[in-house]
Each structure stands twice: as structure tokens, then as C-alpha cells.
């Protein structure tokens, strides 16, 4: 609805969208793998599809690439309806999860492949290949075959190959999932820098919330084919619009209960917390870094908590707490030798900045729409 309204009243705005999904849907054997996804991607924006495995991220990406026909809806690239356009006539570059480098071609030939497609002259082609390989720091490997490259190098070749054609939009399907943890972080930063320096419009798929939070300008959280929430990383983390989003992004404690006329929340087990929300049944989300020792927040209500588990993580310690029969998580730094142990009792306070109320109606509405 929003899209149609925008299109009708502010057509100039459309120019800024490189990609628009309009009510895109894909049904596999009666099951909606992707359900009414609408999304606009601005020029130079890095948007991330985030969600658990099987939620429809890859399917959405592949529909944009033109490998899968949507069962419903429209896809626009720079205002042009490409829903029925074959993949080779859409202006997109894609990096696959397994990179899909052509095993029978050298690195240089892989990168050159697309340039031949568009009929570029040989001399110009070779210049472009050299330039892009320099860009990803692979010029010394130009004559290697893909099987003789490390995972990280393969990823960069795949990226170079996709970028050589200067596509309108770059698609990345879990490009880091085949790399070990250390390399992953480094390549993530490299990729981020490269995409930024090229001002490349990018749609990125991942199930790793940390990856999404660090890379994306905007995150689209998906669950069972549906979009749960679209927002900046800060919005997604600090203001989750549903239980699912709160639980999927970062760790948190979720408490269910009711809010009375004064904004006082009471969980089913009796835990009480002052909020500024309107009355009704509600779920509250408490992030672990906002649970503090009560001496740090002396003006706030203090709770006596039992330490169920205590794990040291270097920069902080993660405590699992029970207040009555409600569970909380706490991330905090303790002075050397003062870290509480399992079985201890500590006093904690809850910083109201870290408390979110997920309205119950939103969840009911979603449930009805899912079924």
C-alpha cells in the first residue's frame, strides 16, 4: 500500500530507488517460501536480508537475479519492471554462497567473461580486468585456476567478476559462510570498504545477525517468508517490533505479562517493572547490557537475583539470573576477583533505556496473517 501511494503521489521519488520489490511472493508446493515482500532499496544503500535458515532469503535474492520466477508481485530495477525479464538482461551482479567460479577458466578469464558478453573490445577488456584485479589485490593470481585459491581469494575473484560489469545492484548470498571466523571479520571489513568506495547498491543475505548489524544500512528481518521488520541496525536492535526480532537479534530476556494504567508491568510470575507503555497484555524485552548492579543505579528499584550460571567472555561476563521464577540475562564487567559465581545472590537494577515493550496486538495481527 505504501509503495503504491508513493508511486502515485511522488513519482520523482521513484528515481532514487534502484530496486523495488512489490508484494513479491513465491509458492513452492502450496507453501509460501516468500510471502508478500515489499522493499525499496536506495542508490548506494547496503540492505541486508536477515533471518534463520529456510526463511526465504535466498529465494528472494534469486527472484531479483532472475533465476526464479515469482508466483506473484513485481520487481523493478531503476523503475523498469523486470519481473519477466531473463537473468541475462537484468543489470545485476551476484556472488554465490559457494562463489561458483568457472573451474575451467583462470582468474583473469573468470573476470573477463562478462565483459565478452557485452561485446567489449579485447584491449579495453584486458585493461578492465587488470584494474578490477588490482582493486581486489589479486593481480598476482590472474593466471591461477580457482581450485588453486584459498576460500578468501575465491570470494574476491567472485566479487571482482560481478563488479567488472559495473552492475546496477550487487547481490551477495551468505558470502562469508564458507570462511573461518577470523578471516570472516577481515574480509567483511574489506568488502564493506570496497562497496562503500564504489557506492554500490547492494542486497546482502545472511543468517548471522552480527554480520548484518555491522555491514548494513538497513536490515530486513525475515521469518517464514514474511518480513518481520525493516529498519536501521539501531532500530532493529533497540526497538524490535516483535518477539521474533528481539530474540533473533542479540540476546535478551522476554517476559510476558500485563501493563496497568500507570504503566506498571507485571509478569505472569509477578516480576514488576515501571514502563511508559499503554495498558494491555504485553511482552517486554530486556537486553543484557542494561541489567546492572544496583549500586550503579541507586535511584532505581533493586531486584534480588539468583545467579544460575556465570560465564567469562573476556570483555564482559554473561550471567544468567533468576528473579523469582523469571529469567534475566546480564552482561557486565566485574573487578578482578569479584565476578559472582553460580549460586550467589546479587542485587540488580534495570536501566529503563534497555527495556522495550512489544505490543501484543502486533503479534496477534501477525499470527492471523501467517495462517
Amino acid at each position, binding site marked *: 500500500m505504501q509503495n503504491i501511494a508513493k508511486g502515485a503521489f511522488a513519482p520523482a521519488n521513484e528515481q532514487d530507488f534502484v530496486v523495488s520489490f512489490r508484494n513479491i511472493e513465491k509458492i513452492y508446493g502450496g507453501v509460501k517460501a516468500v510471502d508478500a515482500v515489499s522493499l525499496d532499496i536506495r542508490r548506494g544503500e547496503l540492505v541486508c536480508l536477515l533471518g534463520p535458515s529456510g526463511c526465504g532469503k535466498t529465494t528472494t535474492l534469486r527472484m531479483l*537475479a*532472475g*533465476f526464479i520466477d515469482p508466483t506473484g508481485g513485481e520487481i523493478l530495477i531503476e523503475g523498469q519492471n523486470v519481473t519477466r525479464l*531473463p*537473468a*541475462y*538482461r*537484468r543489470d*545485476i*551482479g*551476484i556472488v*554465490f554462497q*559457494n562463489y*561458483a*567460479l*568457472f*573451474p*575451467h577458466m583462470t582468474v583473469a578469464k573468470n573476470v573477463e*567473461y*562478462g565483459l565478452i*558478453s*557485452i561485446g567489449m573490445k579485447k584491449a579495453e577488456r584486458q585493461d578492465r580486468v587488470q584494474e578490477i584485479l588490482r582493486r581486489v589485490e589479486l593481480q598476482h593470481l590472474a593466471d591461477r585456476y580457482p581450485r588453486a585459491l584459498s576460500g578468501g581469494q575465491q570470494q574476491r575473484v567472485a566479487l571482482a*567478476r*560481478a563488479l567488472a*560489469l559495473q552492475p546496477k545492484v550487487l547481490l551477495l548470498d551468505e558470502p562469508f559462510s564458507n570462511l573461518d571466523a577470523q578471516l570472516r571479520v577481515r574480509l567483511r571489513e574489506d568488502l564493506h570498504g570496497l562497496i562503500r568506495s564504489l557506492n554500490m547498491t547492494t542486497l546482502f543475505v545472511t543468517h548471522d545477525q552480527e554480520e548484518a548489524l555491522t555491514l548494513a544500512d538497513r536490515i530486513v528481518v525475515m521469518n517464514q517468508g514474511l518480513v518481520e521488520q525493516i529498519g536501521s541496525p539501531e532500530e532493529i536492535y533497540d526497538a524490535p517490533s516483535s518477539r521474533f526480532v528481539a530474540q533473533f537479534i542479540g540476546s535478551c530476556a522476554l517476559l510476558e505479562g500485563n501493563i496497568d494504567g500507570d504503566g506498571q508491568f507485571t509478569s505472569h510470575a509477578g516480576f514488576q517493572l515501571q514502563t511508559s507503555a499503554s495498558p494491555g497484555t504485553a511482552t517486554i524485552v530486556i537486553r543484557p547490557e542494561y541489567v546492572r548492579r544496583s549500586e550503579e543505579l541507586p535511584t532505581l528499584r533493586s531486584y534480588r537475583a539468583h545467579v544460575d550460571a556465570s560465564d567469562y567472555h573476556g570483555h564482559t561476563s554473561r550471567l544468567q539470573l533468576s528473579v523469582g521464577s523469571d529469567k534475566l540475562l546480564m552482561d557486565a564487567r566485574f573487578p578482578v576477583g569479584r565476578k559472582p559465581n553460580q549460586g550467589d545472590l546479587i542485587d540488580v537494577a534495570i536501566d529503563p533505556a534497555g527495556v522495550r515493550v512489544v505490543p501484543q496486538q502486533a503479534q496477534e495481527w501477525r499470527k492471523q496473517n501467517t495462517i
Partner: protein
Amino acid sequence: MSVDIQDRLLSITGVVVRWLVYVMLLLPAIIVVATSFTPGTALTFPPPGFSLRWYIAVWESSLFMSSLGLSLRLAALATVCSLIIGLAATFATDRYVFRGRDFVRGFLLSPLLIPTVVLGLGLMQFLIWIGLNQTFIGLLLGHLVITLPYVVRTLTASMVLFDRNLEQAAMSLRATPARVFRTITIPLLFPGIMSAMVFAFVTSFGNVTLSVFLSYQDRITLPIRVLTYVEQNYDPLVAAVSSIVIFVTVFTIFLADRLSGSRSVI
């Protein structure tokens, strides 16, 4: 300790069995090839000397030479035809979901399950019925029936391993379907195609059971010619002919292996 001994015993048995199999497989061929070089007139192993007289005799025998020519032509044509049909059929059954797909798959492989004698008899009657018996086309059709399943099976196996992402990557790089097929699909399926061709060629070239029913007058394939010759004569000429069959087969496999590069064909 006892596990150790069992392990050793097992591995020794394994080696022995393996060599037995090699010897059993290779020995007949070695004996035939060796005896074909005999300068004498009897089939003896080991041969008393070395000469090419029986090869010259084959060369001068118009019967054997015409059969060799026929067999080579037949095998080559059967290979090409079954490859084209097989590629089309395998693409269809591998890439598309349609009603009766499993039936088509099974049907294409079914000649492997039917005894070739039964197939030959049936084919002969069928060809008479459609008026193609005693023709080269009839012979070729018969051979297609037995070469096609090998082609389909080999190609199916290599297509299952084929990464479809490669084609999609090429498509996202603006390559038209025709270019994708030419520069990605075919080059990557090449080893599979080569081994399918080897199977088809060797199957057709060495076939007896079917050709017996379909050969006629001056159109007699080499294996059948050897068979009929041996019924009356027993001299090193057949050893020379048989050796030629072996050479052709080995050469085919060697060539295919070379052409498809480092990846093994068989």
C-alpha cells in the same frame, strides 16, 4: 594382537584377490595379442617368433576389411546419434519436472535389463514389420537401442554432479543461454560426454548378440565375421582380427582420456 593379524590377513587377501582379477581380465587379451604375432600357422602361446604375416592376411582379406569398415562406421554413427539423443533426453529429465519423467528415465535405461538375445529377436521382427530389416538403418537403429542406455546413464551421473550455480553465474554476467551452453555447460560436461562416447562406441563395436540378428549378406559386423570364421577355421588370422578389436577399443579409451584432460574418463 589378533586384530592386528586379522587386519594383515585381510589386506593380504585383498591384494591377492585384486591381482587375480587383474590377471583374469588381462590374461586372455595378452594371450590373443601375443599369438597374433606368430610366424607359424597354429595358435600357440607363447608364439615361436614374431611376424606381422597374419595382420597382412587380414589386410588382404576383403571379407574382414569390409566388416572392419562396417563396424567402425556403425560404431561411430551409433555413438554420435546416441550422444545427441542422449544429451537431449538427459537434459530434459535432469532439468525439468514433467509428468512421466520417471517413466522416461526408466524407459531409456530399460534395454540394459532385457537380455540382448530377446532384444535382438524382437528387433529383427520389428524391423521386418516396418520394412527396415536387412538395411544399414535397421542395423544402426538396433545398435542405438543398446548404446543409448550407456550414454544416458553416464551423462545423468555427470549432470547430477553439475553445479547449476555456474550457469546462473554466467547468466548474471549477461551471457545468453546459447553462450552459457557453449562456454560453461558443454566444457564442464565434456569428461562425461567423452566417457559416454567411449561406452557407446565400445558397446557397439564389440556387440555380437544383437548384430547376429541384424547382420545380412555383405553387411556383417566384425565380431560376427570372427564368429562365423572360427566355426570353420582355427588359425592365427582370428587372433590378428581380435587383436585389432582390442587395439581399437584401447585406442578409443586412450584418446578420450587425453581429450578430456586431467579428469579420468572411466
